[in-house]
């Protein structure tokens, strides 16, 4: 398949106005020249990449270096040769080449070449390529893109098909500019695109997105609702505590499980922010909400979270669980208690030792005994 960035289908952006006529003639001539040159490159490039993949790595490196030497036009040509339709058989070799090039220029010490490849990839969004080709480009930028490519990727966030690959690429690049780009697209986003953006902002733990995401905490759409709660919990948004706890105080369901998990994420996040008292309130509220026998697993999780946040100050709660009549609670707590002992050992060795002795008494699990004895040995020095 012969394709060119300067073909009608994938035409270059055009200018308007009277000056355009003159420019147009020049451009047409330039495009024709480019098309001729592109055809030559098609043959040349196709022949160059024919040996790929190969276990002669020196040969592979030589091929990739030749492509780099030929410049961004050659790279652009290869990208288009991967095909507008997904799975185009004629696009197989070009895909090996482009993908190999991405890995090659991402190796430590090759950043100069990486910039050229990333820039050339991002430039493809200016052309009228198919969505599948642009999705392929997004996936490559997910690996080799950096801050500089975020703006180009962000222009795809309005597209139903391309929002997901663009969001994933931006999410992988990460950082404040990535979050800002996703956040910027959120107010106007609806449906699947909104869910995609909220999901990504939650994963990035973008605090600035919290006010907009709070609007979705009780959204009609179940996916959006669950994702919004996850996002707010993961972000550590203190202002969402009441809404999340309310969502966790519902009839048993998958959605309630997710809301509970969001509450505990929030607690951990608050703990990280130094808001231990707020975190503790959430953990205790969850424990309070889950008193039934068959909810012990959530009590365990809340207790584990409490111990993570409070450390030595959670020992009364941990010890009480180690003395519980409930085997599930006791054994689960014994496992996490060894981690607690390890964490507090340096500054509170006596408490750590006492905790480990409680652990040994409370469970018959040999693996826990093994772990506890090791920590005790270290404490004894």
């Amino acid at each position, binding site marked *: 398949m012969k394709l060119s960035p300067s073909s009608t289908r994938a035409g270059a952006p055009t200018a308007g106005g009277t000056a355009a006529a003159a420019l147009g003639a020049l451009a047409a001539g330039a495009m024709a020249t480019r098309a001729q040159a592109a055809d030559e490159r098609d043959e040349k490039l196709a022949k160059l990449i024919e040996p790929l993949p190969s276990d002669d790595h020196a040969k592979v490196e030589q091929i990739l270096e030749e492509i780099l030497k030929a410049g961004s036009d050659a790279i652009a040509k290869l990208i288009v040769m991967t095909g507008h339709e997904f799975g185009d058989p004629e696009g197989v070799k070009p895909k090996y080449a482009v993908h190999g090039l991405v890995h090659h220029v991402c190796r430590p010490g090759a950043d100069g070449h990486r910039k050229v490849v990333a820039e050339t990839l991002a430039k493809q969004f200016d052309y009228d390529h198919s969505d599948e080709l642009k999705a392929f480009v997004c996936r490559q930028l997910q690996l080799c893109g950096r801050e500089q490519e975020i703006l180009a990727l962000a222009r795809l966030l309005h597209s139903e098909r391309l929002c997901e690959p663009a969001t994933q690429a931006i999410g992988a690049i990460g950082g404040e500019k990535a979050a800002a780009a996703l956040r910027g697209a959120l107010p106007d986003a609806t449906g699947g695109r909104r869910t995609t953006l909220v999901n990504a902002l939650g994963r990035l733990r973008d605090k600035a997105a919290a006010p907009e995401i709070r609007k979705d905490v009780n959204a009609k759409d179940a996916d959006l609702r669950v994702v919004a709660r996850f996002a707010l919990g993961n972000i550590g948004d203190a202002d969402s505590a009441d809404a999340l706890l309310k969502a966790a105080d519902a009839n048993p369901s998958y959605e309630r499980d997710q809301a509970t998990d969001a509450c505990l994420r929030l607690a951990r996040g608050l703990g990280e922010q130094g808001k231990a008292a707020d975190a503790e309130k959430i953990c205790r509220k969850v424990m309070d909400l889950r008193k039934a026998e068959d909810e012990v697993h959530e009590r365990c999780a809340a207790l584990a979270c409490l111990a993570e946040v409070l450390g030595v100050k959670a020992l009364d709660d941990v010890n009480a669980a180690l003395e519980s009549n409930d085997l599930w609670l006791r*054994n689960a707590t014994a496992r996490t208690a060894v981690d607690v002992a390890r964490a507090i050992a340096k500054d509170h060795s006596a408490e750590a030792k006492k905790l480990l002795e409680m652990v040994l008494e409370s469970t018959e699990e040999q693996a826990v005994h093994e772990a506890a004895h090791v920590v005790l040995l270290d404490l004894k020095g």
Partner: protein
Amino acid sequence: MTNNKRQQGVSRRRFLGTATAAAAAAAIVPRHVLGERADRRPPSETITYGVIGNGGRKDSGLRGKKDFERIAVCDVDIKRIGGEPDGKTRFTDYREMLERKEIDVVCIGTPPHWHALPCLHAAQAGKDIFCEKPFTKFISEGRAVADAVKRYGVIFQIGTFGRFGKQSEGDRQNRKIIKYGLIKDLSDLVASGGGKNRTGSPSLPRVDEIPEELDYDLWLGPAPFKPYNPKRVHYSNRFYWDYEGGDLTNFGHHSMDPLLYLYGKDHTAPVRVEPGPAPWPQHPDCVGQYSWIECTYADGMRVLFGGGAYKASYDRPRKRSKVSVDDLDEEGRKRYDALPDVAKLVDFGTAVRTRQQSGGHAEASHRVSTLMNLCNLAVRLNRTIHFDPDKEVIVDDEEAARFVDIPMRAPWHL
């Protein structure tokens, strides 16, 4: 949730109440001994399970085992559940199946891109988990599941059992010595395993007719959207990066799980992973081939994985494949004697009944998956990967680092 899993233990206070104070003072019995008698689920009681992913593997890890009874099945292909979902025994969405209180365990036989999330959600729903190997598609999935299993106190078992056979005295010495670092330099120790080396077709054109019985969107789940092609589903998905890691992770998990147990590596990962020569570059969609991959741990020990037609000869020195107490100096021997013996492995059924960690537990499975995913990554990128096993991050390689935690398609997230 069945009440039989909530067996109430006999408390120390209750026990003492039935005996004389003098007798009690003379014989204080540890709680776990009391628990051993009173807390266990009666052997006659069945453990019920639901299958998530009723394809090739189905519930082969649990089917026919006398303790277990299958009461529900879930698959995104309704042909595989014997008809339309009924909300009780047949489901297409596992999240609905998890809401059934009568189910104690989930048996996960989906492709790996659909392992971590059902495990996480099962833990959040208080279900114990039997999950087929290979465990996870990327590293942070395994960490998320291992943490959730611990926090929620559920029991986890991976679908491979080779480690249960590594119980000889020699095996136990080997494991204890290496696990506790009693020999500082193990650079002459190499353990090896291998597997098949198949690959898929790199060209998967769109096929517009998606079978009526298949919910393709749910089949994809967290994987990137790509147009439907029959090779993306029902086993051949094994050879596409979006869903799993080909034969390397498939066979790797079988051969490396007992190895990592034997060599005391259940709680760590290699610091360096180097690929041997294999056809390169890899295709962006389709899994390619590998030759050997050398993984070096912090103590110098190497694990070698290799396979198939492209297995080049590995010619680096390897003096020994095991250690024993005879290799310890006096100081080492003292420490060996002071350290606790290696805990016996508990089978899944016993683990569920007694609420003890199962032998093929989540942390170990995560570390095996980490090893295999790093191997695949080194092969894909054609370069040595450096990994911090404590922080679980890839060092000094921005592109490689992005493979540790891969964004999921919404609405899915870890």
